[in-house]
Every structure is written in structure tokens, then in C-alpha cells.
């Protein structure tokens, strides 16, 4: 392959109000990933280029960006898989700090709100858990918090809603499906997390670098549980009777 035409979105809020794409020529090296090309620019052409990266092994989820308009990890996208005209832009769903770096700190406040792992009280230690029960939660625990699913989500990008976003549905599901956890977070996700806003377009699971079935296995499950609690006619009757009984007892 010949040289790469690499267009990188540059934006320095200290000097300008809007950003622009700047084109660089980068020599192609066999097997290189987009992060290699971007780092080439940083090391050889302009050291002030702001990028965020860490493990370069698709394990930490730091180098999220929009490569040829698709939310991707820079370290995991091979140049030979997309050709030598490449554009790299920061995640559009988050406020830009500089160049390719965005402010993703809103996620920490959301994570703080999700009720933490709450084990059954009084279990004998060390805990015994059947191997099969571990599997259910395992898929969700693969999440590396790259927030690409948040980035691609049109509910977050285009509508000002209270929807927490796919990452946080996965987080809640990972605990709801923990075999020893006693909480059910679906009602919380419905009331506080805006899970109802998700209209199951499945874009999030399409871009997930860990191939988590975010919509199918986390969001739909949580939605169904929330619906069961709220709208199941039999459950509603039982609930009403219970509350009546409780009133009588009082």
C-alpha cells in the first residue's frame, strides 16, 4: 500500500471556535493500525496533537474516535481494512477538549447513580457459585468503557433526554445478572435511566469492540423486566391485593 492520506480533526479551543480537518501524509507500515498513523503525526510532525491512548491492545478503551465516520478504537482498526484515505474525528457525543480528546466525565456521575452490587446478606463464605451462573454476567463484564456505544447512540446524540446510554444499561445488567445480587435495577433504569427512550436500533452493539450484544442481551432484558413489573396484569392484581392487605393490617 502507498502512503496514507490521513485527515485528522484539529481543534484548539484556546485559539479557535471551530475545528477543521488537517491532512497529513503518513508512510504505510505492514499491519499498522490507525493509532500508529496518528501517533506518527504526533511524534514526527506535530507533538502538540492531542490524542488519548493507553494500552494499544484494545483492552483499556481510551483511544475511541470516529474513523471514516464510524465509532471505533484507533488501536484496533487496521489500516488495510479501510484503505488509505482515512479521516479521524473525536467522538461527537461528548464535549471536545482538544483535537481528538473529549470530555467523558459525565459517565462517572451516571455510574455513581446505578445501585452497586448488593449480595444476599448472611451467606456462608467463601461463596459457592455454579460455573453456569457465572456465564450470564460474563458477557457484560467484558465492557472496557470505551463509550463508543454512547457515541453512536442517536438518542444521546440527537435528543436531549435523560437516557443513561448503552454502557450504563450493560453495567446495570452485569449486576442484575450476578448470581448473588439481590437487587432488580430494571425499575430504576426505567424511572431514572430513561431506558424507554431506547428504540432498539442496535447501533450500539454494532460498534462494540468487545462484541457485547448490548441491545439483545442487556437492554431488551431490562426493558422487559421493567415492563413486567409495571404492566403485567397478573402482577398488577397481586400488587394491588398486597397493598390492600397491608392497608388492612395497618
Amino acid at each position, binding site marked *: 500500500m502507498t502512503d496514507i492520506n490521513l485527515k485528522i480533526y484539529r481543534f484548539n479551543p484556546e485559539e479557535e471556535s471551530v475545528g477543521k480537518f488537517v491532512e497529513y501524509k503518513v508512510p504505510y507500515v505492514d499491519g*499498522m493500525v490507525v493509532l500508529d498513523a496518528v501517533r506518527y503525526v504526533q511524534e514526527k510532525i506535530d507533538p502538540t496533537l492531542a490524542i488519548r491512548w493507553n494500552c494499544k491492545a484494545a483492552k483499556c478503551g481510551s483511544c475511541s474516535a470516529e474513523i471514516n465516520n464510524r465509532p471505533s478504537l484507533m488501536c484496533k482498526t487496521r489500516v488495510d481494512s479501510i484503505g488509505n484515505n482515512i479521516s479521524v474525528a473525536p467522538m461527537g457525543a461528548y464535549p471536545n477538549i482538544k483535537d481528538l480528546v473529549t470530555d467523558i466525565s459525565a459517565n462517572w456521575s451516571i455510574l455513581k447513580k446505578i445501585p*452497586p452490587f448488593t449480595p444476599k446478606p448472611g451467606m456462608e463464605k467463601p461463596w459457592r457459585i455454579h460455573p453456569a451462573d457465572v456465564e450470564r454476567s460474563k458477557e457484560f463484564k467484558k465492557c472496557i468503557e470505551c463509550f463508543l456505544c454512547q457515541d453512536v447512540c442517536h438518542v444521546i446524540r440527537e435528543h436531549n433526554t435523560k437516557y443513561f446510554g448503552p454502557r450504563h444499561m450493560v453495567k446495570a445488567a452485569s449486576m442484575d445478572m450476578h448470581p448473588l445480587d439481590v437487587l432488580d435495577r430494571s425499575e430504576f433504569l426505567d424511572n431514572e435511566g430513561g431506558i424507554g427512550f431506547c428504540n432498539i436500533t442496535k447501533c450500539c452493539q454494532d460498534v462494540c469492540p468487545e462484541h457485547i450484544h448490548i441491545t439483545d442481551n442487556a437492554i431488551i432484558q431490562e426493558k422487559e423486566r421493567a415492563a413486567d413489573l409495571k404492566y403485567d396484569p397478573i402482577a398488577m392484581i397481586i400488587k394491588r391485593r398486597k397493598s390492600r392487605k397491608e392497608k388492612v393490617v395497618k
Partner: protein
Amino acid sequence: MEETFKTVKTDVLVIGAGGAGMRASIAVKEAGLDVVMVTKSLLGKAHTVMAEGGIAAALGNVDPQDNWKVHYGDIIEEGVYISNWRMAEICAKEAPDRVFELESYGALFDRTPDGRILQRAFGAHTYRRLCHVGDRTGLEIIKTLEDQILHRDVKFYDEMYITKIVVKNGKACGAIGIKMNTGEFHYFQAKSVIVATGGCGRVYKVTSNSWESTGDGLGLSYEAGAVLKDMEMIQFHPTGMVYPPGVKGLLITEAVRGEGGILLNSKGERYMLRYSPQKKELDARDVVARANYREIQEGRGTEHGGVYLDITSKGADYIKHKLPSMYMQFMEFAGVDITKEKMEVAPTVHYQMGGIRVDPETGHSSLEGLFAAGEVASGLHGANRLGGNSLADILVFGRRAGIGAAEYSKKAKDIDVDAKVINEEISRVKGFLRKDGKNPYELIDRLTTAMSDHVGIVRTKEEIEKAIKIINELKEDYKNVGTLGSFKYNHGLLGCLELGNMLIATEAISRAALMREESRGAHTRVDFPKKDKKWLKNIEIKKADSGMQFNVVPVEEMPEEYKQYAKPEEY
């Protein structure tokens, strides 16, 4: 000059937010004190996330004969008798509690058929001992601890790069840092400081380490006056990727061998039978790494300069279940299907056994008020670390450093530092922003190349001296290093700051390597191929007016009753 900066006051400042830093912060919070945790990267991205194979803890779930004494013996023997015996004891005894604690925080380990935590075999562990989550144990640990940090409301500043530890009257009492995403300087006033910044693998060209591991904690603590030791002990992991070039050095977990993977040279020979007939592929990392190195050097390597690692005999289902990340890593980076094809591997720099000298009980360094834990601290692993012991290390000693610093801070008084000290530091950092500065990345490239070429897996006097010469030249060049731009998210500036720490780390490594005229553990001298009883010692390093000062001190002798747990050393 008057500079602007923000002041943050706390009881304990924790630098670093990997496993050790997070566990230390939790311990301080539990002790009822204020804690501030700062990290160079984002929360939850630290190098701990890269740990794959598992955490070593003698639970005896799979092999009931296992107990802390056997684990202790393994640490001492494979650390080739220069580990601190007390740290080995504490680690072996407390690791199981830390594993159960993780579970109580919500971590989910793989299980045995009867529901207990499953344990896998790993190099030079006598029994199957590594509690694991497939091959992504580090991710599980870091996300579990991140949850605790968030829900316990630990105050943290991410993308905060610390440039100096503040010392007054011989006591560490805070630090100065630059918040990368805003460009603001911060002064953290603290009664004690915990350094948990991880290792320095990035001082080598080919390494499994992430971007962060530039030896920042080593440089900061050395400059503050703390003693470093065992710096010559750099671990080469036997199996790093070799192809394609972009991923050269990337780790292939030891779990591949733990699950039955074998090493072959280009002639198809299983050469570990020659080097280590008993333990074979599962001998200690230094042994296997040297064997791989020799096979490649002697012309029995692969097309891209590696050897083969073969797990295909285990079948596709087993591999995808037990080693999902490895399967994905090779599929997506190299286009190799490891269920059908052999992997090409070669040694890669992986871990620093040496670091800040600490008190085993509390993590207190030789400098009052300064504590350290995790990879940046030294003592536990001696001349060679066993796989799985670093995850045990960060939790066991992270917690202890947290408790130690909290106890210390309860008694300590606030120390006020003259604003001049902070102003001077900010001016120093400002000095790197200049028009005609030398590109830091070029200097870093020369430094890392020199280390890989001359202070590698096999060393000689001549080669090490070449490295020292280059380091000295680079120290001169460093005076003129600089970059354009501002303080806000400026990687060039960060490169300048990191390079300062990298120069300290590399000088310590090279000069200690030159001093130790023997071969022990990870340190192999071709000109001194044998282990030497004279060198049952640790090399300690301290800053003096004249530069680095080296002291050779005998290894602390273990109590008589403990000697039975480890085989006596043979020469």
C-alpha cells in the same frame, strides 16, 4: 514569579489509580481520613487492565495441598533469594483474603464444578494457584475497584500528571501536578503521599507495557530523596507478539502455556524439554525467556524473528472459552486463527522487580511521609516475579500502604510549604514550552532503542557501558528539550516531563546492571554467567549531590523456621 495554581488539601494523596492506588485509596477512606487519588490517564484505564492470566492466592481449591508456605517458598526460590522474606510471607498469607474481598465487591471469578474459585497452573507455581476470569482478570479487578472508588465517593483527579513530590524538613508533604485536560497547575497539600504509579517498561523499545509505564514514580521519589533498589531486575516476558510491527511486544498471556500451549522452534522441536526437562514451558519466566531468546539467536527462529507457541491441540471451543482475548487479539491484529495456527512469539519487556524500597508492614519508604505500593515498590519479587503475583502484590500491599499512610497521617501535622517552591516548579515546567526545543520523542526513541539494544535480556559490560554513554549524552540533550503549544493536553510537554523520569530509571537500571557481576534471575551477564554467593545482596540507589549513589547491602535473613519452606540456595 507569581504563578497561578489551585490548592487541594487532603490527609493522604495517592498518585496512581491502578489496582494498588485504588486499593490504597479504599483503605484510607475506610480509616476515616480524607483521600485524593490522582492519575495520569482516565479512571479505569491503568495498566492493571492489561493483566490477563490471574491472581495468585493459595486457596487450595484445585490442589488441596497448596497453602501459604508453599506459595512463600515459590516466591523466595524463584526470586532467587534476594526477595524480602517478610513481604513474601505477607503476600502469601494475605492474597486469599484480597481475592475473597474482590468477590464481595462484585468480581466474578471462573468456578470449579462444585462452585469454588477455579485456579489454573502458571509458570513455577508449585500448584495450580491462579484465580482468574478467563484471560481478562485485570479488567475484572480494575472495574470492580473502580466501582468501589465511585460508590465510596473517593475524590479523584484523572489526567493529572504529577511533576514533583514536595518535601519539607525531610518529610514528603504533597505534590504538584498539571491537569492535562484544563492545563491548570495544582498543588496537593497532604500529610502523606502514596506512590502507586506502576512500572517503567516504556523505557524499552519492545515492551508489553501501556503508554503510562514511564517510571514516573521512580523519578519523582528518587528526586524527593527516597531509596530505590533492585533496579537491574527487569523482567522479560517469554511471549510477546512479533508480527505485525505495530503490535510488536504486545503480551500473550502465560495462561496459554498454563492451559497447555507448547513452544516450538522452526525445526518443530519442543526445545523446553532441553532447557527445563521438569517444568518445561511452565518454568519461571526468566528461564523460558532466555530459552526463547537463545533459539532465535542461534538461528532456529521463525520468519519474523520469533519462536512458535502452539495451543491448537486444545481445540477451538476450549481455546475460545479459556483464552477469548488471545483469540481475538491474534485474529484482529495479525489475522492468525490460534485455534488452527501457531503463534509467533518472542521475549518482551514486561515488569520491573525493583523500585522504591519500602517497609513490608506499611509500605513506608525511606523518606518520611512517602509510601509506595505495587510495581513501583520493590522487595517482593526479588530477581524474578512469578506470574499472578503482581495482582496479589497490588491488592495486598496497596491496602497496607493505605492503612500505613492513614495511621501516619493521623499523627502528622500539616506542613505549610512556601509558595516559592510551587512557583519554581511551575516555572521549570513552563521552561519546556519553547520554539527551538529538541523533539522529546526523538530523544525517547534514542533512549528506548539504546536500552533494548544494550541492556536487554542478555548483558555484558561492554554493552551496558554503551547504554550508559548514550544515557549521559541524552542527559545533556535533555537540557534543550522542548515543545510548542500550551499546557492544555499537550503530549509534547508530557513527553518532556516523562523523559526526565525515564532518564533516571534507565540510569539506575544500567548502572546497577553493570555493578552486579553475576547472573541471577532476570539479570543475565554473559561475562559472568554463574550465580555468585557474594551477590546475595540488594543494590540500593539514592540521590546524592554528586549524582546517583549506589550501596550494596546484604539481603535480610529470614527467620530460622521459615528456611524449611524454601529449598536452600545452591551455587
